[in-house]
């Protein structure tokens, strides 16, 4: 029974992938096990969409020339909000898990395991997010059918789904950055609030960033917050292959940058814990 089992190097990659896949399934399983919470999230999504689409429909209906309302695309804003909220509500609170584990010492059992805690946590969060994306996506489609609203072209869905999934990845990485600050700040709420506000302002949570003045629009579009929300959502009102590819490029860029930032913070924080025994 006390056999030693060290993995051989050629199999390391496949074993690491297998552990990550298992963590992904675990996250999905945890979310499904808490199905009443998932149902509550879908109900909240419906309420949000009813209220916000009514608001934007009224604003757009005015269409006063020379005003902000005059710049908005008719009818599509409800669909835009539907996508931003689909992504936002699918995000798990990875920052809270990281903060809790780091502050409470709950990290210790994980450090005694041969696989990376950060990679496992990310994969688990992604599993949870995918179940939520699925449930909220079905809710959105049902609501769209019931509302009688004109749906976006079919190709829009083919663009929105991959961009939405990658948008969730960007969102998890942004919140993970906030959570990892617990190594130094203990309380991550201020970082989380800053990220949330930037998602609102630069990500275009309630309206496309194309409404901003040109310079601000360019800055917003190049930010990780737009990669999280704007690029997937704009496909609901301006469906284009170019927009899809541009969004994909920005998302790829930010996933690499944010992953590196998370990894750097993790390594620095881990070194601190191994040296000082806690935070």
């Amino acid at each position, binding site marked *: *029974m*006390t056999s030693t*089992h060290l993995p051989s190097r050629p199999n390391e990659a496949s074993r690491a992938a*297998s552990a990550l896949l*298992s963590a992904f399934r*675990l996250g999905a399983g945890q979310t499904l096990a808490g199905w009443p919470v998932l149902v509550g999230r879908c109900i909240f999504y419906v309420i949000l969409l009813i209220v916000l689409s009514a608001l934007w429909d009224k604003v757009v209906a005015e269409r006063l020339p020379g005003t902000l309302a005059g710049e908005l695309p008719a009818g599509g804003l409800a669909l835009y909000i539907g996508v931003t909220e689909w992504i936002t509500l699918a995000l798990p609170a990875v920052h809270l898990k990281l903060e809790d584990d780091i502050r409470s010492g709950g990290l210790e*059992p994980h450090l*005694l395991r*041969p696989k990376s805690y950060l990679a496992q946590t990310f994969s688990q969060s992604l599993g949870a997010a995918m179940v939520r994306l699925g449930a909220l996506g079905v809710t959105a489609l049902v609501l769209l059918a019931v509302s009688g609203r004109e749906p976006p072209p079919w190709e829009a869905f083919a663009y929105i789904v991959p961009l939405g999934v990658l948008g969730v990845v960007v969102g998890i990485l942004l919140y993970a950055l906030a959570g990892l600050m617990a190594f130094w700040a203990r309380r991550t709420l201020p970082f989380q609030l800053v990220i949330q506000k930037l998602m609102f302002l630069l990500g275009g949570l309630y309206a496309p960033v194309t409404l901003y003045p040109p310079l601000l629009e360019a800055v917003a579009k190049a930010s990780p917050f737009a990669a999280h929300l704007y690029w997937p959502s704009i496909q609901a009102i301006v469906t284009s292959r170019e927009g899809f590819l541009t969004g994909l490029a920005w998302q790829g860029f930010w996933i690499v940058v944010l992953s590196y930032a998370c990894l750097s913070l993790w390594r620095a924080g881990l070194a601190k814990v191994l040296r000082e*025994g806690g935070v």
Partner: protein
Amino acid sequence: MSAVITIANLRKQYSYAKRGRGLFGGFSPQHVSIEAVDGVSFQVERGERVAVIGPNGAGKSTTLKMLSGILEPTSGEASVLGLTPWRDRKALAYRIGVVFGQRSQLWGELPARDSFNQLRHIYDQDKAVFEKRLGEMVKRFALAELLDQPVHRMSLGQRMRCEITASLLHGPGLLFLDEPTIGLDVTAKAAIRDFIRDHARDHGQTVLLTSHDTRDIELVCDRVIVVNAGRVVVDQPTDQLRRRFLGRKIVTLLFNGAQIVLDLPGVTRRASDAHAVVLDVDTRLVRVEQVITAALAHGGVEDITIEDPPMEEVIHDIYASAVTTQ
């Protein structure tokens, strides 16, 4: 026998910033250092079951953390299963099992089976080997009913059985246990102790355990290392230690009549008030049964409690003894 753990002059110094006085004290903190482990050295042979005990803050958990690789020492050397723990943390993780009595390694919302399965992937275990080991544990620990139950719905005793199972599924040769029976009832404690002892004996596993419960030490371990103020003060077989230091019981009598006075050899009064008397009983001179019989004969006894001396007292005795023999 071969050494599984060898540590030499291991030291760990913590430092923290102490806030200065006054409104702006935060800008001029004082840095304070604490010597948590101060030159600890010992060896543990393969198959030994060793308890590391000591009062709170003695340095036992810090030592355990350094040996499992999750804390770097300030200085000194250690070899665990041929590896340097803080340099080879991940490689060592495949070969050790760790149980924290106050921390769970399972996923609360999910059935225990899902946690075990996740651990199989984390430890790269072959499915057939894993299933065989899990089967043995399920049988030995009566886990069949628990496997499909969410961990957060389990009692503490049930959860601890699952925690120990989780720590053994990858077949570690060395098991670290930090307060494995803390908070458990008498029956659950007995089950955990029996399992740890029998499993280690049957599989030639080495165990390093910390606990404040003297029964954990007596029933599981064959050697005790006592640390105090970061130093090893006693290192000897459990039998010898028991004979030297665990030959006492504390008997508390609650009564509603006249003050109870017992004139028996080996019985001394520790404290008393109008309705209670606390007696220190030296079991080498008088049996507890004799004390109880004498108290009942006196009449008016409402309640009786029999306890081991507090660990702090045992440690104090050991430490005092160690100081006088130096």
